């Protein structure tokens, strides 16, 4: 009995890592730009389509992943420069709407260019391995390993590099950073690039569980938002931890009550928000003029 739980937890970690990665992308953008990026999931979906056709061209899988990450980075940069930057000073709700519009653009283009019917997307690693009592797909292990590496490197970037410290500074005081001559716009562009690159990677890693179609990232995005909110929206670490927790809890709940799998995280978010309006790890802000 206990073994089953170990397996459930291990699988949950793999799902949770995916939520965590997506949530980190969302939090990075939210922190530095004060924007809830609704296009995070669909950007990944679009990039996954690109990857699908690159794979069809018989390019090696790892190269395709690399190309997808690069494509994501470029897309993120373009979006920041041409869509977000001009509207930045206007309203926050307006910025949310822009990312909503962007999500629709990705969805429409994907369905139009690549046709909307579901396609089968092969994983990079197909076998499964047993670690003690736990049986886990190799792809799941890959996800866990890769996301650990990414968590670690994002941390190094945020705390050890000039750009990362700059990004944290921007998040706290955009105006102060600008006055000091910190290249705020360049940093924001880099953050968008990183986020979109992350979303592309997530898309490719997770799509084999589903089928490739224009909506496949939507449920992941919903969970990632939940994780981001639970993590407090202002902490990359919080997002990662909340993503993992959510993945594990969801997996265990789904084992006992399969019909709750989809709603569980959502109901959890609503309950948590009702009692802690700024999430589990969020900072309290004082209400003042």
């Amino acid at each position, binding site marked *: 009995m206990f073994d089953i739980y170990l397996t459930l937890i291990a699988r949950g970690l793999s799902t949770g890592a995916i939520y965590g990665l997506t949530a980190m992308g969302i939090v990075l953008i939210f922190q530095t730009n004060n924007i809830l990026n609704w296009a995070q999931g669909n950007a990944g979906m679009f990039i996954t389509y690109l990857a699908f056709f690159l794979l069809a061209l018989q390019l090696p899988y790892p190269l395709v992943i690399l190309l997808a990450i690069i494509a994501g980075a470029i897309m993120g940069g373009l979006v920041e420069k041409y869509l977000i930057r001009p509207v930045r000073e206007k309203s926050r709700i307006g910025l949310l709407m822009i990312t909503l519009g962007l999500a629709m653009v990705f969805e429409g283009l994907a369905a139009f260019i690549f046709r909307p019917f579901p396609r089968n997307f092969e994983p990079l690693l197909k076998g499964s391995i047993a670690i003690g009592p736990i049986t886990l797909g190799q792809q799941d292990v890959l996800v866990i390993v890769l996301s650990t590496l990414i968590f670690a490197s994002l941390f190094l970037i945020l705390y050890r590099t*000039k750009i990362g410290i700059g990004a944290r*500074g921007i998040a706290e005081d955009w105006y102060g950073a600008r006055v000091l001559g910190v290249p705020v716009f360049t940093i924001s562009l880099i953050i968008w690039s990183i986020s979109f690159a992350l979303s592309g990677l997530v898309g490719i890693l997770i799509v084999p569980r589903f089928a490739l179609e224009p909506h496949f990232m939507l449920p992941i995005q919903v969970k990632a938002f939940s994780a981001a909110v639970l993590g407090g929206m202002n902490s990359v670490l919080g997002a990662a931890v909340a993503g993992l927790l959510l993945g594990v809890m969801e997996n265990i709940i789904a084992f006992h009550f399969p019909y709750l799998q989809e709603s569980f995280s959502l109901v959890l978010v609503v309950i948590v928000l009702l009692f802690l309006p700024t999430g589990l790890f969020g900072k309290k802000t004082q209400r003042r003029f």
Partner: protein
Amino acid sequence: MLKIEALVSGYAHLEILHSINLKVEKGEIVSVLGSNGAGKSTLLRTISGILKPWKGTITFEGKLLNDLDPIQIVKHGVVQVPEGRHIFPGLTVKENLLLAGYKFGKIELSERYDSVYTMFPVLKEREKQLGGTLSGGEQQMLALARGLMPKPTLLLLDEPSLGLAPKLVTLIFKTLERFRDEGLTILLVEQNAKRALEISNRAYILATGYLALEGNSSDLISDQNVKRLYLGR
């Protein structure tokens, strides 16, 4: 050194500065006085490139600053220490300084740390502490230190004494005099007119976006007009 001619500026549709002329010579402390809403902060924001001038010119050492963005203006050696300090509360003291020295490479950066730490030894002690946990006076020190990080030739200070106890205000103004003695040029915006006039060479008085008066600080300090304009009677 800094020359501003017929400058008009403001926010969105609101014109705040109406045709301002002002100059700062090398090695001077020049103060800009005026009550709330007179346009002092707008002036500094326009010089630093946060706001774009609507009309007129800003030249610094012969170069036109009008169309440059804040990053380039800092690179030219014009650095602002904004009102309200704008310390990054979640970043350490050292990280705060690092962002101020963003334009430098590794070697030059550590040189700058040393030089700033000699000026403000207390910051060296607090190096690893988060900016938000410093006391008000220490935060103002950090703000000044950040202003020095990029090796400015002209420092723009917006209300450095704001919200500080009198003892600390004295300390801050002493520090500014030290800056000048080391060859720095300062444009100082202040509410505390008396203190500002005492340490500055020349002063301008702004009233609702117009230049009301200018002259040598020593003359202004005893001028009846100053009392009338600045104190409103």
